[in-house]
């Protein structure tokens, strides 16, 4: 059973390399995208932290800003 799955009637090298390439592409794209997102979230938090009390209050009044801060705390 395992031999048949690995060898695939002599086509194993082709089948497994095609599936491996696809999965490696998925993992790479996912982590590159996640890294970019985390970078922007961190940048946002740093900028938010440097705001004075009044500006921070204005920024916090926007739902999307609150959402970013909420999600960033989970990174």
């Amino acid at each position: 059973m395992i031999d048949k799955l690995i060898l695939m009637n002599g086509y194993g090298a082709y089948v497994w390399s095609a599936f491996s390439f696809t999965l490696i592409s998925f993992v790479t794209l996912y982590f590159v995208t996640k890294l970019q997102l985390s970078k922007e979230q961190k940048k946002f938090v740093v900028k938010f932290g440097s705001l004075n009390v009044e500006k921070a209050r204005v920024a916090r009044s926007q739902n999307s800003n609150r959402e970013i801060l909420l999600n960033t705390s989970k990174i």
Partner: protein
Amino acid sequence: MFKYFEPNKIFAITSRAPKYVLFLFIVILTIGLTEALILSPEDYKQSDAVRIMYVHVPAAWISLGIFSSLGLLSLGSFIFKNKNFALISKSLAPAGFVFNIIALVTGSIWGKPTWGTWWAWDARITSMLILALFYGMYLLAWKIYEDKEQVIKVTSMIAILGVINVPIIKYSVDWWNTLHQPPSISILSNNSIHVSMLIPLAIMTAAFALFSLLIFLMKYNTELIKIKNKGLNRL
């Protein structure tokens, strides 16, 4: 109507959705891989080499679908002057490009045992390569141009020009003599593919569609946070 899709209004959804989409993607992909690699039958002619179809075909479909969306959204961005369309297109493109590359590479791997060659300048393959070039130009334009108005114009032009290639890819197997077989799946007529192969193909397509949705949501959130970062500077 577009006011309901304003980034600020949908951000609560787009920022929370990725974790659910990722979970669903992993479940569907696991089922799809089990079907594609273990449960589905081998082909009477191609034997187990046919299993490459379960990654090659969905990747090609999704890359074509995403580029068609880029074309439509770019047209919408021109007509309705809605910048959110450009933001959606920009977030969709990376997944489309990667799926295009996957389709080309897995097609090349499939070509060797089936046709005896890694590459042929056949109409379908060449038109898919041209699509990859359009994707490349589209993504590069976002990196090169800094002026917002200019980059939206340039990328929209690339997407609208590139979308002409989509029907060429679709009908290339009918219009020219190519190594590719005519379509096995049709919405309007009977499918020539057996249901035992159609089911894993459909599951893998659903998994790939979920993955492109996941990448789109993450990219879209990144772009929105970039805008919010600039907004903080203006406070």
